[in-house]
């Protein structure tokens, strides 16, 4: 009984410590003297490996998700003779929900896990420690460029996802299922507002990007320097990041649909 109580206490203390450490870590990464000219090449390289290498999976997923939403929507809407509302259904569900959330989940799986493994391996092989010995700050040289690259590429990936999904859906709806092209686009434009739908989608993807990339670099930087510790950290990145994305999505949606 006493032992169980003690282990409960230990788990909560560990959780609080790790949340606090990750917060301190984030502030250390964010608030540091900017050395733009020297950091920029590092940022470009990381944008390539975090953003561009994630593009193929985002593009393929977006195309198929758009097509499936159009197909399912048509199946249901046609029962009410409302298949003119296809554009509205497709655009709102993609721009508000599917775009940011699916991009975030794929991004956590594709880029987040890779970053954790990369930084974790650097720690395990003591590259980070040797960098510090050479008076190179690993937070500046390794962590900050990866952090900013993830934060920048996530909304861009989500925007590309949205555009591709809507075009994929329009292809199924117009060319295959025979929805009239004019009603499709005009209903979509009447229903989607730039400020309320598209900008809030971008805000969502910014928040998700921050959460994912923060989890990824923190888990890598903080992992136990063994092979097992690295594999655990990678798993934790994907699990924590995905769960936080889904939870935050609920909160953000509630805030956006309310009077915010």
């Amino acid at each position, binding site marked *: 009984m006493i032992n169980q109580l003690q282990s409960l206490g230990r788990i909560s203390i560990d959780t609080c410590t790790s949340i606090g450490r990750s917060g301190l870590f984030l502030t250390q990464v964010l608030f540091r003297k900017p050395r733009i000219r020297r950091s920029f090449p590092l940022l470009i390289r990381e944008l*390539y490996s975090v953003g561009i290498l994630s593009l193929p999976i985002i593009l393929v997923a977006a195309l198929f998700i758009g097509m499936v939403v159009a197909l399912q929507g048509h199946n249901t809407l046609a029962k009410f003779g409302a298949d003119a509302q296809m554009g509205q259904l497709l655009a709102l569900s993609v721009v508000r929900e599917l775009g940011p959330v699916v991009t975030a989940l794929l991004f956590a799986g594709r880029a987040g896990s890779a970053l954790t493994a990369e930084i974790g391996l650097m720690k395990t092989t003591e590259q980070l420690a040797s960098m510090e010995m050479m008076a190179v700050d690993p937070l500046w040289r390794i962590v900050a460029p990866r952090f900013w690259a993830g934060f920048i590429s996530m909304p*861009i990936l989500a*925007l590309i996802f*949205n*555009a591709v999904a809507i075009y994929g859906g329009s292809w199924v709806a117009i060319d295959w299922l025979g929805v009239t092209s004019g009603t499709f*686009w005009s209903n979509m434009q009447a229903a*989607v*507002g730039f400020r309320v739908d*598209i900008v809030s989608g971008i805000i969502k993807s910014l928040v998700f990007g921050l959460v994912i990339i923060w989890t990824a670099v923190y888990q890598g930087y903080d992992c136990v320097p063994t092979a097992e510790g690295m594999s655990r950290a990678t798993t934790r990145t994907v699990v924590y990041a995905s769960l936080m994305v889904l939870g935050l999505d609920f909160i953000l949606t509630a805030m956006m649909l309310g009077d915010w």
Partner: protein
Amino acid sequence: MNNKTVELLVGVFIIAGIAALLILALKVSGLNYYPGQNTYQLTASFDNIGGLKVRAPVRLAGVQIGEVKAIAIEPKTFKAVVTLAIDSKQDQLPTDTAANIQTEGLLGSNFIALSPGYAEDFLKHDDRIEVTHSALILENLIGQFLYNVNKK
């Protein structure tokens, strides 16, 4: 991979993101319809605007020529004052033009239909449309109909 290719690809990536944003803004949300500068304003007051919302279309003979810019209450008369932004190309609306609130289909959203009159003068910026007809509220009509049926 050498540095130049990486930089080039990242540039393409950023451009693709901006292009996607433009597609979403212009093609999906239809943001470009009234940029704001090339419009002039008219006001009209209604007894009841029903479900009219800001950005609802203003139509002339079924063609959209503007949108609702603002909705407010007139302090003394308790009427709803609707500000309309009309495309500057349509600057030859007669002063006795009437504004009606109509509904798209049976359950659709409200819009304002303008029907031009026969006056010689034209409406200018900040003019007021005098002849207005309120929204047709389906529930009230059904209520009146049921009331009449019961009376007989």
